Protein backbone atom coordinates (compact mmCIF):
# COMPACT_ATOMS: atom_id res chain seq x y z
CA UNK A 1 0.00 0.00 0.00
CA UNK A 2 2.84 2.35 0.81
CA UNK A 3 4.48 1.48 -2.51
CA UNK A 4 1.25 2.27 -4.39
CA UNK A 5 0.96 5.62 -2.61
CA UNK A 6 4.54 6.52 -3.46
CA UNK A 7 3.93 5.46 -7.06
CA UNK A 8 0.90 7.74 -7.20
CA UNK A 9 2.87 10.58 -5.71
CA UNK A 10 5.62 9.99 -8.23
CA UNK A 11 3.12 9.93 -11.07
CA UNK A 12 1.24 13.08 -10.14
CA UNK A 13 4.12 15.58 -10.56
CA UNK A 14 4.74 14.09 -14.01
CA UNK A 15 1.10 14.71 -14.92
CA UNK A 16 1.28 18.22 -13.47
CA UNK A 17 4.45 18.86 -15.41
CA UNK A 18 2.79 17.66 -18.58
CA UNK A 19 -0.09 20.06 -17.99
CA UNK A 20 2.03 23.19 -17.63
CA UNK A 21 5.78 22.63 -17.73
CA UNK A 22 7.88 25.09 -15.78
CA UNK A 23 11.21 26.05 -17.24
CA UNK A 24 12.99 24.16 -14.47
CA UNK A 25 11.17 20.95 -15.34
CA UNK A 26 12.02 20.96 -19.02
CA UNK A 27 14.73 18.53 -20.03
CA UNK A 28 18.12 19.92 -20.91
CA UNK A 29 18.23 20.67 -24.61
CA UNK A 30 19.64 17.65 -26.40
CA UNK A 31 22.68 17.93 -28.62
CA UNK A 32 20.79 18.35 -31.90
CA UNK A 33 19.22 21.51 -30.53
CA UNK A 34 22.61 22.76 -29.40
CA UNK A 35 24.15 22.50 -32.88
CA UNK A 36 21.14 24.24 -34.34
CA UNK A 37 21.25 27.03 -31.75
CA UNK A 38 24.97 27.54 -32.32
CA UNK A 39 24.64 27.64 -36.08
CA UNK A 40 21.74 30.06 -35.77
CA UNK A 41 23.50 32.49 -33.45
CA UNK A 42 26.50 32.51 -35.77
CA UNK A 43 24.49 33.44 -38.82
CA UNK A 44 21.72 35.53 -37.28
CA UNK A 45 23.03 37.06 -34.06
CA UNK A 46 20.23 39.54 -33.51
CA UNK A 47 17.32 37.15 -33.18
CA UNK A 48 16.59 34.40 -30.71
CA UNK A 49 16.55 31.00 -32.38
CA UNK A 50 13.12 29.47 -32.80
CA UNK A 51 12.10 26.66 -30.49
CA UNK A 52 11.88 23.10 -31.73
CA UNK A 53 9.35 20.43 -30.80
CA UNK A 54 11.81 18.63 -28.54
CA UNK A 55 11.65 21.47 -26.05
CA UNK A 56 7.89 21.02 -25.74
CA UNK A 57 7.89 17.32 -25.11
CA UNK A 58 8.40 15.18 -22.08
CA UNK A 59 11.32 12.82 -22.68
CA UNK A 60 10.47 9.16 -22.79
CA UNK A 61 11.87 6.86 -20.11
CA UNK A 62 14.79 4.68 -21.19
CA UNK A 63 14.45 0.97 -21.86
CA UNK A 64 14.22 -0.82 -18.53
CA UNK A 65 16.36 -3.88 -17.95
CA UNK A 66 13.42 -6.12 -17.08
CA UNK A 67 10.13 -6.32 -18.92
CA UNK A 68 7.59 -4.03 -17.25
CA UNK A 69 4.26 -5.42 -16.23
CA UNK A 70 2.12 -2.95 -18.11
CA UNK A 71 2.13 -1.45 -21.56
CA UNK A 72 1.83 2.34 -21.72
CA UNK A 73 -0.40 3.35 -24.58
CA UNK A 74 -0.84 6.74 -26.26
CA UNK A 75 -3.74 6.64 -28.65
CA UNK A 76 -4.03 9.96 -30.51
CA UNK A 77 -6.35 11.30 -33.16
CA UNK A 78 -6.12 14.65 -34.93
CA UNK A 79 -8.89 16.13 -32.85
CA UNK A 80 -8.41 14.38 -29.52
CA UNK A 81 -6.08 12.25 -27.45
CA UNK A 82 -8.19 9.19 -26.77
CA UNK A 83 -5.72 7.58 -24.43
CA UNK A 84 -2.75 9.41 -23.02
CA UNK A 85 -0.09 7.33 -21.24
CA UNK A 86 -2.64 4.79 -20.15
CA UNK A 87 -1.26 1.63 -18.63
CA UNK A 88 -2.90 -1.44 -20.08
CA UNK A 89 -2.23 -5.15 -20.32
CA UNK A 90 -2.50 -5.61 -24.06
CA UNK A 91 -3.65 -3.95 -27.26
CA UNK A 92 -4.57 -5.64 -30.50
CA UNK A 93 -3.95 -3.43 -33.51
CA UNK A 94 -5.11 -4.03 -37.09
CA UNK A 95 -1.78 -3.84 -38.89
CA UNK A 96 -1.54 -4.31 -42.65
CA UNK A 97 -0.13 -7.80 -42.01
CA UNK A 98 -3.12 -8.74 -39.84
CA UNK A 99 -4.19 -8.35 -36.25
CA UNK A 100 -1.15 -7.81 -34.09
CA UNK A 101 -1.21 -8.28 -30.35
CA UNK A 102 1.10 -5.99 -28.39
CA UNK A 103 2.19 -6.97 -24.90
CA UNK A 104 4.72 -5.32 -22.61
CA UNK A 105 8.20 -6.15 -23.77
CA UNK A 106 7.20 -6.35 -27.43
CA UNK A 107 10.09 -5.86 -29.83
CA UNK A 108 10.38 -2.32 -31.19
CA UNK A 109 8.23 -2.07 -34.30
CA UNK A 110 6.84 0.42 -36.76
CA UNK A 111 3.64 -0.80 -38.38
CA UNK A 112 1.13 0.77 -40.70
CA UNK A 113 -2.52 0.20 -39.86
CA UNK A 114 -5.32 -0.83 -42.19
CA UNK A 115 -9.00 -0.20 -41.48
CA UNK A 116 -10.04 -2.51 -38.68
CA UNK A 117 -10.77 -2.96 -35.02
CA UNK A 118 -8.41 -1.84 -32.30
CA UNK A 119 -9.06 -3.38 -28.91
CA UNK A 120 -7.54 -2.25 -25.63
CA UNK A 121 -7.44 -4.86 -22.86
CA UNK A 122 -7.17 -3.57 -19.33
CA UNK A 123 -7.75 -6.20 -16.67
CA UNK A 124 -11.06 -7.72 -17.63
CA UNK A 125 -12.46 -4.83 -19.63
CA UNK A 126 -12.02 -4.53 -23.36
CA UNK A 127 -12.60 -1.29 -25.28
CA UNK A 128 -12.97 -1.63 -29.02
CA UNK A 129 -12.54 1.12 -31.60
CA UNK A 130 -12.80 1.01 -35.35
CA UNK A 131 -9.78 2.85 -36.80
CA UNK A 132 -9.63 4.04 -40.36
CA UNK A 133 -5.86 3.86 -40.75
CA UNK A 134 -2.71 5.20 -39.23
CA UNK A 135 0.53 4.07 -37.71
CA UNK A 136 1.62 2.31 -34.58
CA UNK A 137 5.06 2.70 -33.04
CA UNK A 138 6.08 0.22 -30.39
CA UNK A 139 9.16 1.33 -28.50
CA UNK A 140 11.58 -0.84 -26.63
CA UNK A 141 10.54 0.67 -23.30
CA UNK A 142 7.01 -0.77 -23.60
CA UNK A 143 5.49 2.44 -24.86
CA UNK A 144 3.04 2.11 -27.71
CA UNK A 145 2.00 5.12 -29.78
CA UNK A 146 -1.04 4.59 -31.94
CA UNK A 147 -1.79 7.45 -34.32
CA UNK A 148 -5.01 7.10 -36.25
CA UNK A 149 -6.77 9.44 -38.60
CA UNK A 150 -10.23 8.52 -37.40
CA UNK A 151 -11.45 6.17 -34.71
CA UNK A 152 -14.93 5.50 -33.41
CA UNK A 153 -16.19 3.16 -30.71
CA UNK A 154 -17.99 0.24 -32.30
CA UNK A 155 -21.39 1.05 -30.84
CA UNK A 156 -21.52 4.29 -32.84
CA UNK A 157 -21.59 2.43 -36.18
CA UNK A 158 -24.84 1.90 -38.07
CA UNK A 159 -25.11 -1.48 -39.86
CA UNK A 160 -27.49 -0.27 -42.54
CA UNK A 161 -25.27 2.62 -43.59
CA UNK A 162 -22.32 0.25 -43.76
CA UNK A 163 -24.20 -2.11 -46.08
CA UNK A 164 -25.34 0.76 -48.22
CA UNK A 165 -21.81 2.16 -48.46
CA UNK A 166 -20.43 -1.24 -49.42
CA UNK A 167 -22.96 -1.67 -52.22
CA UNK A 168 -22.29 1.88 -53.42
CA UNK A 169 -18.54 1.43 -53.62
CA UNK A 170 -18.83 -1.98 -55.30
CA UNK A 171 -20.94 -0.41 -58.04
CA UNK A 172 -18.45 2.46 -58.30
CA UNK A 173 -15.63 0.02 -58.79
CA UNK A 174 -17.40 -1.77 -61.61
CA UNK A 175 -18.16 1.53 -63.33
CA UNK A 176 -14.74 3.10 -62.71
CA UNK A 177 -12.69 4.03 -65.75
CA UNK A 178 -9.47 5.70 -64.62
CA UNK A 179 -6.92 4.20 -62.24
CA UNK A 180 -7.60 6.95 -59.72
CA UNK A 181 -11.32 6.18 -59.60
CA UNK A 182 -10.58 2.46 -59.33
CA UNK A 183 -8.20 3.09 -56.43
CA UNK A 184 -10.71 5.32 -54.62
CA UNK A 185 -13.49 2.77 -55.07
CA UNK A 186 -11.21 0.00 -53.89
CA UNK A 187 -10.33 1.97 -50.75
CA UNK A 188 -14.04 2.49 -50.10
CA UNK A 189 -14.72 -1.22 -50.46
CA UNK A 190 -11.83 -2.11 -48.12
CA UNK A 191 -13.03 0.24 -45.41
CA UNK A 192 -16.66 -0.81 -45.65
CA UNK A 193 -15.95 -4.51 -45.66
CA UNK A 194 -13.70 -4.02 -42.65
CA UNK A 195 -16.56 -2.14 -40.97
CA UNK A 196 -18.89 -4.96 -41.87
CA UNK A 197 -16.67 -7.64 -40.40
CA UNK A 198 -16.08 -5.48 -37.34
CA UNK A 199 -19.78 -5.24 -36.69
CA UNK A 200 -20.59 -8.85 -37.41
CA UNK A 201 -17.45 -10.61 -36.18
Amino acid sequence: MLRRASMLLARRPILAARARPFSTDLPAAPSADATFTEAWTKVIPNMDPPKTPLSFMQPRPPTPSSIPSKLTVNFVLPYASELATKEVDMVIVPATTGQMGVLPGHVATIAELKPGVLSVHEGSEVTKYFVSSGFVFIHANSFADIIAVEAVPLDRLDVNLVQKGLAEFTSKLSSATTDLEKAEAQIGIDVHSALNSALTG
Partner: protein
Amino acid sequence: MAMAALRREGRRFAPLISPRPITAVRSSPLYPTLEDEGPLGLRHISTQVVRNRMKSVKNIQKITKAMKMVAASKLRAIQTKTENSRGLWQPFTALLGDLPSADVKKNVVVTISSDKGLCGGINSTSVKISKGLHKLNSGPEKETKYVILGEKAKAQLVRDSKKDIELIITELQKNPLNYTQVSVLADEILKNVEYDALRIVFNKFQSVVSFVPTVSTVLSPEIVEREAESGGKLGDLDSYEVEGGETKGEILQNLAEFQFSCTMFNAVLENACSEQGARMSAMDSSSRNAGDMLDRLTLTYNRTRQASITTELIEIISGASALEG
Protein backbone atom coordinates in the same frame (compact mmCIF):
# COMPACT_ATOMS: atom_id res chain seq x y z
CA MET B 1 -20.87 105.80 -30.37
CA ALA B 2 -21.23 103.77 -27.23
CA MET B 3 -21.27 100.69 -29.41
CA ALA B 4 -18.06 101.83 -31.04
CA ALA B 5 -16.54 102.42 -27.60
CA LEU B 6 -17.68 98.99 -26.49
CA ARG B 7 -16.20 97.42 -29.56
CA ARG B 8 -12.95 99.27 -29.02
CA GLU B 9 -12.82 98.30 -25.35
CA GLY B 10 -13.69 94.72 -26.13
CA ARG B 11 -10.98 94.54 -28.75
CA ARG B 12 -8.46 96.14 -26.41
CA PHE B 13 -9.04 93.55 -23.71
CA ALA B 14 -9.42 90.62 -25.99
CA PRO B 15 -5.72 90.38 -26.98
CA LEU B 16 -4.79 90.31 -23.29
CA ILE B 17 -6.89 87.29 -22.54
CA SER B 18 -6.82 85.47 -25.85
CA PRO B 19 -3.18 84.23 -25.52
CA ARG B 20 -4.32 81.85 -22.82
CA PRO B 21 -6.97 80.06 -24.82
CA ILE B 22 -4.71 79.88 -27.86
CA THR B 23 -1.84 78.29 -25.90
CA ALA B 24 -4.26 75.88 -24.29
CA VAL B 25 -5.34 74.67 -27.66
CA ARG B 26 -1.82 74.80 -29.01
CA SER B 27 -0.85 72.04 -26.58
CA SER B 28 -2.37 69.72 -29.16
CA PRO B 29 -0.71 71.33 -32.12
CA LEU B 30 -2.44 69.47 -34.86
CA TYR B 31 -5.58 71.52 -35.24
CA PRO B 32 -5.93 75.22 -35.85
CA THR B 33 -8.27 77.34 -33.78
CA LEU B 34 -11.25 78.76 -35.50
CA GLU B 35 -12.33 82.13 -34.43
CA ASP B 36 -15.65 83.37 -35.60
CA GLU B 37 -17.14 86.73 -35.17
CA GLY B 38 -20.37 86.78 -33.21
CA PRO B 39 -22.73 89.72 -32.76
CA LEU B 40 -21.23 92.76 -30.99
CA GLY B 41 -17.85 91.75 -32.37
CA LEU B 42 -17.46 89.05 -29.72
CA ARG B 43 -14.98 86.38 -30.65
CA HIS B 44 -15.71 82.71 -29.90
CA ILE B 45 -13.08 80.09 -30.19
CA SER B 46 -14.69 77.17 -31.97
CA THR B 47 -14.62 73.75 -30.39
CA GLN B 48 -15.78 72.07 -33.59
CA VAL B 49 -12.43 70.58 -34.53
CA VAL B 50 -11.87 69.06 -31.11
CA ARG B 51 -15.39 67.72 -31.04
CA ASN B 52 -14.97 66.00 -34.42
CA ARG B 53 -11.77 64.44 -33.31
CA MET B 54 -13.35 63.21 -30.10
CA LYS B 55 -16.19 61.61 -32.01
CA SER B 56 -13.86 59.73 -34.32
CA VAL B 57 -11.63 58.55 -31.49
CA LYS B 58 -14.66 57.29 -29.60
CA ASN B 59 -15.79 55.34 -32.65
CA ILE B 60 -12.35 53.82 -33.03
CA GLN B 61 -12.45 52.78 -29.40
CA LYS B 62 -15.80 51.07 -29.88
CA ILE B 63 -14.63 49.25 -32.98
CA THR B 64 -11.42 47.99 -31.44
CA LYS B 65 -13.29 46.81 -28.33
CA ALA B 66 -15.67 44.87 -30.54
CA MET B 67 -12.79 43.36 -32.49
CA LYS B 68 -11.22 42.26 -29.24
CA MET B 69 -14.43 40.50 -28.17
CA VAL B 70 -14.70 38.77 -31.53
CA ALA B 71 -11.09 37.62 -31.36
CA ALA B 72 -11.65 36.34 -27.80
CA SER B 73 -14.62 34.23 -28.84
CA LYS B 74 -12.79 32.83 -31.88
CA LEU B 75 -9.82 32.04 -29.67
CA ARG B 76 -11.99 30.10 -27.24
CA ALA B 77 -13.39 28.02 -30.06
CA ILE B 78 -10.07 27.13 -31.60
CA GLN B 79 -8.09 26.72 -28.39
CA THR B 80 -9.75 23.44 -27.40
CA LYS B 81 -9.07 22.03 -30.85
CA THR B 82 -5.43 23.04 -30.64
CA GLU B 83 -4.90 21.52 -27.23
CA ASN B 84 -6.47 18.28 -28.38
CA SER B 85 -4.21 18.14 -31.40
CA ARG B 86 -1.06 18.55 -29.35
CA GLY B 87 -0.75 14.82 -28.82
CA LEU B 88 -0.54 14.27 -32.55
CA TRP B 89 3.06 15.20 -33.28
CA GLN B 90 4.59 13.83 -30.09
CA PRO B 91 4.81 10.16 -31.15
CA PHE B 92 6.70 11.18 -34.29
CA THR B 93 9.21 13.21 -32.35
CA ALA B 94 9.54 10.37 -29.84
CA LEU B 95 10.33 7.95 -32.66
CA LEU B 96 12.33 10.03 -35.07
CA GLY B 97 13.67 12.74 -32.81
CA ASP B 98 14.08 16.23 -34.12
CA LEU B 99 17.05 17.20 -36.22
CA PRO B 100 16.82 20.84 -37.18
CA SER B 101 20.55 20.89 -37.86
CA ALA B 102 20.52 18.06 -40.40
CA ASP B 103 22.63 18.97 -43.39
CA VAL B 104 20.51 18.62 -46.50
CA LYS B 105 20.63 19.86 -50.05
CA LYS B 106 17.03 20.73 -50.70
CA ASN B 107 15.35 22.65 -47.91
CA VAL B 108 11.77 23.71 -48.06
CA VAL B 109 10.57 26.28 -45.54
CA VAL B 110 6.81 26.22 -44.99
CA THR B 111 5.83 29.57 -43.50
CA ILE B 112 2.46 29.71 -41.82
CA SER B 113 0.89 33.13 -41.36
CA SER B 114 -2.51 34.76 -41.15
CA ASP B 115 -4.66 36.18 -43.92
CA LYS B 116 -5.93 39.17 -41.99
CA GLY B 117 -3.88 41.86 -40.36
CA LEU B 118 -4.12 43.81 -37.11
CA CYS B 119 -2.65 40.91 -35.20
CA GLY B 120 0.50 42.35 -33.74
CA GLY B 121 3.94 41.19 -34.82
CA ILE B 122 3.49 37.44 -35.23
CA ASN B 123 3.60 37.41 -39.01
CA SER B 124 6.75 39.51 -39.09
CA THR B 125 8.46 37.13 -36.65
CA SER B 126 7.51 34.14 -38.79
CA VAL B 127 8.90 35.80 -41.89
CA LYS B 128 12.10 36.82 -40.09
CA ILE B 129 12.63 33.26 -38.90
CA SER B 130 11.99 31.90 -42.40
CA LYS B 131 14.54 34.29 -43.84
CA GLY B 132 16.92 33.28 -41.07
CA LEU B 133 16.52 29.63 -41.95
CA HIS B 134 17.14 30.47 -45.58
CA LYS B 135 20.38 32.18 -44.60
CA LEU B 136 21.35 29.35 -42.27
CA ASN B 137 20.95 26.75 -44.97
CA SER B 138 22.66 28.61 -47.74
CA GLY B 139 25.80 27.22 -49.16
CA PRO B 140 27.22 25.54 -52.25
CA GLU B 141 24.77 23.08 -53.82
CA LYS B 142 22.18 23.87 -51.21
CA GLU B 143 18.93 25.56 -52.00
CA THR B 144 16.00 26.72 -49.92
CA LYS B 145 12.52 27.15 -51.29
CA TYR B 146 9.46 28.72 -49.65
CA VAL B 147 5.94 27.43 -49.41
CA ILE B 148 3.73 30.17 -48.06
CA LEU B 149 0.42 29.79 -46.26
CA GLY B 150 -1.40 33.07 -45.68
CA GLU B 151 -1.54 36.51 -47.25
CA LYS B 152 0.65 38.35 -44.79
CA ALA B 153 3.76 36.27 -45.30
CA LYS B 154 3.17 36.37 -49.05
CA ALA B 155 3.18 40.16 -49.00
CA GLN B 156 6.47 40.26 -47.15
CA LEU B 157 8.31 37.46 -48.92
CA VAL B 158 7.26 38.33 -52.45
CA ARG B 159 9.18 41.56 -52.12
CA ASP B 160 12.65 40.10 -52.01
CA SER B 161 12.52 36.33 -52.39
CA LYS B 162 10.14 36.03 -55.30
CA LYS B 163 12.21 33.49 -57.20
CA ASP B 164 12.45 31.14 -54.24
CA ILE B 165 8.72 30.80 -53.69
CA GLU B 166 7.30 27.49 -54.84
CA LEU B 167 3.72 27.55 -53.68
CA ILE B 168 1.38 30.13 -52.17
CA ILE B 169 -1.80 29.08 -50.38
CA THR B 170 -4.29 31.62 -49.02
CA GLU B 171 -7.77 31.68 -47.49
CA LEU B 172 -7.03 28.75 -45.28
CA GLN B 173 -9.54 29.69 -42.60
CA LYS B 174 -12.56 30.23 -44.79
CA ASN B 175 -13.97 26.96 -43.48
CA PRO B 176 -13.22 25.80 -39.96
CA LEU B 177 -9.89 24.03 -39.83
CA ASN B 178 -10.04 20.26 -39.99
CA TYR B 179 -7.65 17.44 -40.64
CA THR B 180 -9.00 16.52 -44.07
CA GLN B 181 -8.35 19.98 -45.44
CA VAL B 182 -4.83 20.07 -44.04
CA SER B 183 -4.00 16.60 -45.31
CA VAL B 184 -5.11 17.57 -48.81
CA LEU B 185 -2.88 20.63 -48.52
CA ALA B 186 0.04 18.53 -47.32
CA ASP B 187 -0.52 16.18 -50.22
CA GLU B 188 -0.37 19.09 -52.69
CA ILE B 189 2.86 20.36 -51.18
CA LEU B 190 4.48 16.94 -51.19
CA LYS B 191 3.46 16.33 -54.79
CA ASN B 192 4.70 19.62 -56.18
CA VAL B 193 7.83 20.31 -54.21
CA GLU B 194 11.02 18.30 -54.15
CA TYR B 195 12.42 18.21 -50.65
CA ASP B 196 15.04 16.66 -48.45
CA ALA B 197 13.87 18.47 -45.35
CA LEU B 198 10.67 20.38 -44.69
CA ARG B 199 10.84 23.04 -42.03
CA ILE B 200 7.50 24.31 -40.81
CA VAL B 201 7.69 27.78 -39.24
CA PHE B 202 4.78 28.81 -37.06
CA ASN B 203 3.91 30.55 -33.78
CA LYS B 204 3.18 28.13 -31.00
CA PHE B 205 0.42 29.21 -28.67
CA GLN B 206 1.57 29.11 -25.07
CA SER B 207 -0.86 31.54 -23.52
CA VAL B 208 -3.04 34.46 -24.52
CA VAL B 209 -0.09 36.82 -24.26
CA SER B 210 2.79 34.54 -25.23
CA PHE B 211 3.48 33.10 -28.69
CA VAL B 212 6.72 31.25 -29.30
CA PRO B 213 8.12 31.04 -32.83
CA THR B 214 8.81 27.38 -33.51
CA VAL B 215 10.27 25.35 -36.32
CA SER B 216 9.36 21.68 -36.83
CA THR B 217 11.54 19.62 -39.11
CA VAL B 218 10.26 16.73 -41.22
CA LEU B 219 12.94 14.81 -43.04
CA SER B 220 12.47 12.85 -46.22
CA PRO B 221 12.85 9.04 -45.97
CA GLU B 222 16.22 9.05 -47.71
CA ILE B 223 17.67 11.53 -45.25
CA VAL B 224 16.17 9.52 -42.37
CA GLU B 225 17.95 6.43 -43.66
CA ARG B 226 21.19 8.36 -44.00
CA GLU B 227 20.98 9.74 -40.48
CA ALA B 228 20.05 6.33 -39.08
CA GLU B 229 23.08 4.76 -40.69
CA SER B 230 25.44 7.43 -39.47
CA GLY B 231 24.27 6.85 -35.90
CA GLY B 232 23.65 9.61 -33.44
CA LYS B 233 20.07 10.61 -32.72
CA LEU B 234 18.40 8.26 -35.15
CA GLY B 235 20.86 5.42 -34.63
CA ASP B 236 18.38 3.09 -33.00
CA LEU B 237 15.85 3.48 -35.78
CA ASP B 238 17.30 0.35 -37.35
CA SER B 239 16.41 -1.64 -34.27
CA TYR B 240 12.73 -1.09 -35.11
CA GLU B 241 11.22 -3.89 -37.10
CA VAL B 242 9.03 -2.67 -39.89
CA GLU B 243 5.88 -4.64 -40.38
CA GLY B 244 4.08 -4.93 -43.62
CA GLY B 245 4.64 -3.37 -46.99
CA GLU B 246 6.97 -4.61 -49.66
CA THR B 247 10.02 -2.76 -48.50
CA LYS B 248 11.08 -0.72 -45.51
CA GLY B 249 11.39 2.27 -47.82
CA GLU B 250 7.72 2.21 -48.69
CA ILE B 251 6.67 2.29 -45.06
CA LEU B 252 9.13 5.08 -44.31
CA GLN B 253 7.72 7.05 -47.21
CA ASN B 254 4.20 6.70 -45.85
CA LEU B 255 5.50 7.57 -42.43
CA ALA B 256 7.16 10.77 -43.64
CA GLU B 257 4.00 11.88 -45.41
CA PHE B 258 1.83 11.11 -42.40
CA GLN B 259 4.27 12.93 -40.13
CA PHE B 260 4.16 15.97 -42.38
CA SER B 261 0.37 16.13 -42.43
CA CYS B 262 0.12 15.67 -38.65
CA THR B 263 2.72 18.33 -37.85
CA MET B 264 1.11 20.67 -40.39
CA PHE B 265 -2.28 20.21 -38.77
CA ASN B 266 -0.95 21.07 -35.35
CA ALA B 267 1.10 23.96 -36.73
CA VAL B 268 -1.85 25.49 -38.56
CA LEU B 269 -4.06 25.26 -35.47
CA GLU B 270 -1.39 26.72 -33.19
CA ASN B 271 -0.80 29.60 -35.58
CA ALA B 272 -4.52 30.33 -35.79
CA CYS B 273 -4.70 30.42 -32.00
CA SER B 274 -1.68 32.70 -31.81
CA GLU B 275 -3.24 34.97 -34.42
CA GLN B 276 -6.43 35.39 -32.42
CA GLY B 277 -4.53 35.90 -29.19
CA ALA B 278 -2.25 38.50 -30.78
CA ARG B 279 -5.24 40.27 -32.24
CA MET B 280 -6.90 40.35 -28.83
CA SER B 281 -3.91 41.99 -27.21
CA ALA B 282 -3.36 44.39 -30.13
CA MET B 283 -6.98 45.52 -30.06
CA ASP B 284 -6.91 45.78 -26.31
CA SER B 285 -3.91 48.11 -26.31
CA SER B 286 -5.50 50.03 -29.17
CA SER B 287 -8.72 50.65 -27.24
CA ARG B 288 -6.72 51.64 -24.21
CA ASN B 289 -4.76 54.14 -26.28
CA ALA B 290 -7.97 55.48 -27.74
CA GLY B 291 -9.34 55.89 -24.23
CA ASP B 292 -6.25 57.84 -23.17
CA MET B 293 -6.46 60.01 -26.24
CA LEU B 294 -10.12 60.65 -25.55
CA ASP B 295 -9.31 61.76 -22.00
CA ARG B 296 -6.70 64.21 -23.23
CA LEU B 297 -9.04 65.56 -25.90
CA THR B 298 -11.83 65.96 -23.35
CA LEU B 299 -9.57 68.05 -21.16
CA THR B 300 -8.58 70.17 -24.12
CA TYR B 301 -12.21 70.53 -25.14
CA ASN B 302 -13.24 71.63 -21.69
CA ARG B 303 -10.40 74.11 -21.44
CA THR B 304 -11.28 75.59 -24.83
CA ARG B 305 -14.94 75.79 -23.94
CA GLN B 306 -14.32 77.40 -20.58
CA ALA B 307 -11.84 79.82 -22.09
CA SER B 308 -14.34 80.97 -24.66
CA ILE B 309 -17.01 81.43 -21.97
CA THR B 310 -14.54 83.40 -19.89
CA THR B 311 -13.67 85.54 -22.88
CA GLU B 312 -17.31 86.27 -23.51
CA LEU B 313 -17.94 87.16 -19.88
CA ILE B 314 -14.94 89.41 -19.67
CA GLU B 315 -15.88 91.21 -22.82
CA ILE B 316 -19.43 91.74 -21.58
CA ILE B 317 -18.40 92.81 -18.10
CA SER B 318 -15.71 95.14 -19.31
CA GLY B 319 -18.14 96.60 -21.79
CA ALA B 320 -20.70 97.07 -19.01
CA SER B 321 -18.18 98.62 -16.64
CA ALA B 322 -17.03 100.93 -19.42
CA LEU B 323 -20.62 102.07 -19.79
CA GLU B 324 -21.01 102.71 -16.06
CA GLY B 325 -17.73 104.22 -15.18
